[in-house]
């Protein structure tokens, strides 16, 4: 496609703000972060080079290892559940149900509230002496147990429950936008063919919504890696260190524990991991030709 010079210039000037930002903020700040991880900075940054010592300390740190382990579990469960539930909710709403505005708002409202207090509410609900287990027992179900949140092996799943609660509505919104972009003609054609509804969704609609799924998946994934508020509000990483997550590790060491060196080492490790996962994918897509 021959692009006129004028349009080409416009395209580049439109990208200029992003370029500027990228250079200054992302590369500059990221570079600073990596440099900090090679120093022994405590509360304030300093330039005392100590090589890879912070990384040694990081990988000998039980809490970090557990955090990484946890975020993988959380990530897989959270993304797959939120995508599925969000998609199902969007399909449900798309069926021209009554009171669509209200129902849509019911699914979306969790996203509007920060986790500081909603995390506490979920903690109450999942606490065996206060919440659901207590209520079930008071209704007569004597042996009912739902004490995942106080047991180290299962605390991380409670974070998934609250995380999915908050994010599914957003996924629903993205999917709904995608669903409603599907051409009328296609629906008409499927009815002419006489395909059952669910077949239409599985074989035709879902493949057409690739972009929506991709957007939602990426958004959810950034949410996974940045998971912090929820871990603090619901369990504060507990019991013990059972529900610690990497972003909380970075934050705690950056501020409260006055250990910039260790915190930036953790952040750099996260960055390298993401690059390692994302870069091959981008390379592959670029090789395939036009990025679509």
């Amino acid at each position, binding site marked *: *496609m021959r692009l006129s010079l004028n349009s080409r210039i416009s395209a580049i000037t439109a990208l200029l703000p992003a370029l500027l930002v990228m250079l200054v903020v992302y590369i500059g700040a990221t570079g600073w972060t990596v440099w900090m991880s090679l120093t022994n900075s405590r509360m304030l940054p300093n330039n005392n080079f100590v090589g890879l010592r912070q990384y040694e300390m990081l990988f000998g740190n039980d809490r970090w290892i557990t955090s990484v382990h946890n975020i993988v579990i959380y990530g897989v469960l959270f993304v797959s559940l939120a995508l599925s539930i969000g998609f199902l909710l969007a399909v*449900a709403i798309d069926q021209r149900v009554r009171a669509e505005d209200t*129902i849509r708002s019911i699914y979306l409202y969790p996203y509007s509230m*920060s986790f*500081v207090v909603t995390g506490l509410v979920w903690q109450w*609900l999942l606490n065996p002496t206060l919440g659901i287990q207590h209520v079930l027992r008071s209704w007569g179900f004597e042996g009912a147990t739902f004490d995942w949140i106080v047991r180290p092996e299962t605390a991380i799943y409670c974070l998934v429950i609250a995380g999915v609660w908050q994010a599914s509505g957003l996924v629903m919104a993205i999917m709904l936008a995608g669903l409603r972009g599907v*051409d009328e003609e296609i629906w008409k054609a499927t009815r002419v063919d006489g395909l059952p509804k669910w077949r239409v969704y599985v074989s035709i609609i879902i493949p057409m919504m690739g972009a929506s799924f991709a957007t939602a998946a990426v958004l959810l994934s950034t949410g996974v890696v940045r998971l912090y508020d929820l871990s603090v509000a619901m369990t504060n990483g507990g019991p013990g260190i059972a529900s610690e997550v990497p972003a909380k590790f970075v934050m705690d060491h950056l501020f409260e524990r006055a250990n910039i060196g260790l915190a930036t080492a953790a952040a750099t490790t996260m960055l390298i991991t993401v690059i390692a996962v994302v870069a091959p994918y981008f390379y592959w897509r670029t090789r395939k030709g036009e990025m679509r």
Partner: protein
Amino acid sequence: MTAAAQPLPAARRSKRMTPARWGLYAFIFITALYFLLPLYVMVVTSLKPMAEIRQGNLLALPVAPSIDAWVKAWTSACTGLTCQGIKIGFLNSLRILVPSVVISILVGSLTGYALSLWRVRGGNILFGTMMVVAFIPYQVFIYPLVRVFSFTGLGQSLLTIVIIHTIFGLPTMTLLFRNYFASLPVELFKAARVDGAGFYQIYARIMMPMATPMIVVAVILQTTGIWNDFILGLVFAGRDNLPMTVQLNNIVNSTQGERAYNVDMAATLLTALLPLVVYFGSGRWFVRGIAAGAVKG
């Protein structure tokens, strides 16, 4: 009888309640319970006095519901020396929200548009870098950014916080719009180019009007993120522009002081009202057939 897909004439609006339809409503009902449970606890707790809350019956309805906690949260809760509740920050939050949302969506959509439809060299690298950086906890950038902004003389101000929000929103916004534009029928774009339309004309006259559902999603994302932001507003907005979340944090997060859970819940619900209004009102734009209409015409 499967549910019809096209906009129905008004007369046929009510549906027949088939088993499939019952199943659908049952699904909606059960999932709604899961979503509404915490809200129920929050509202109920906010209507009880602390003595009743201390007894610990989470799901019980209040014995004598009262809106004292709500009034206190809005007008008289202590947030430091001032005991005026969270209302003092409301205007500040608005002043930060509106320009930040508008500008971040503008810049993000423009960038997404340029990246998706115009093959610019290095565009993929730019996009890839943005996406990778979006995965870093943004708090790590606070310190270097503080230095940069004080170096450029912008310091802490309304302008600074708007720029900060735009910067941090850029990856997500770009992602949203890039993917959306890339999924639209390319015939539209080609036809407009053949007609001789330029870069900005296509953006403003064709692409953005078609992107209405995505703009709604972008508004939802940005409004929520910026309205609920605490740490960036605290560090970059300057003392006179502190958003409502600072007061909310002061009420809810006191380290060693007494905790009034009913006020905490009321304050959180009050803070959430604005995004909720945005969500509720966004319904009008989740309408089917915009893109389809454009293609056909």
